[in-house]
């Protein structure tokens, strides 16, 4: 049970970072931390005691494999997380070139 609790606490740390930080790069870093906790939770669900990695060896078939379905979902999610983070970084560098600061309060005051 303890890995599940640690996973939740990591998610809450990321959420606290997104809500209270004013620097844009810190917000992007906290979003990345929230995604990492989600991947860890999915991999924890699919684990079976005494199982081996889900690669079939035709010479000696094994009785118990680890569940491959959550691993397939996380595989897709990791690459999509990379695409989202890259797009967020493109927006951040564009904002920095225009306003000269990373702070969201000052950008709100300077706009217009």
């Amino acid at each position: 049970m303890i890995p599940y609790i640690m996973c939740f606490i990591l998610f809450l740390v990321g959420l606290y970072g997104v809500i209270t930080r004013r620097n844009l790069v810190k917000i992007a870093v906290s979003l990345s931390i929230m995604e990492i906790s989600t991947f860890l939770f999915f991999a924890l669900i699919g684990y079976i005691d005494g199982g081996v990695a889900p690669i079939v060896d035709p010479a000696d078939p094994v009785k118990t494999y680890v569940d491959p379905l959550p691993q397939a979902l996380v595989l897709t999610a990791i690459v999509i997380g990379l695409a989202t983070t890259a797009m967020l970084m493109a927006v951040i560098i564009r904002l920095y070139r225009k306003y000269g600061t990373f702070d969201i309060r000052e950008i709100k005051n300077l706009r217009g």
Partner: protein
Amino acid sequence: MEIALSIITGLMILGALYAIHAKDLLSSVIACGIVGYSLVICFLLLKAPDLAIVQIVVDTITLIIMVAVVLDSSREEQFSKLDTGGYISAVTAMVIIVVLLYFFAVSIQNLDVLGKSTLRMAEHYIEGAAQKTGSANLVTGVVFDFRGYDTMGEAVVLVTAVLGVLTILRLKGKK
């Protein structure tokens, strides 16, 4: 195995706390990369080698892009005093965290003990999968054969993200 997982996730929490509160932006970005690399060790302990390979290369690319953005600027977080906006956001964060903790405490009773999951779909995907799809790697068989729609959706999302990046980072319009 549970002890090793608990220690590594505890260190991940410490790294995440440092990444949020660091004064220098480059240190914060590198701490985010280190949390991602610790996830690779967790994946290897949970017998998922496919995920470990993907996470290690994707985390390297994320680190490269973030450092390319941070090195361009003054690299420091301007620390200013707490004003009313800061107090409101801190109180909001506390309220949301307390509500979420209550819901986690209620739903953790329904989770199975780590390692003895009772998902019924696991047997249907594992038995006969090597014969039905013909591949020795069960995760590839599930990703491309049993759940092919998700893979097609992910390929389309990647193309859309590239289109978005190309549009945002374009300076000169056509005359």
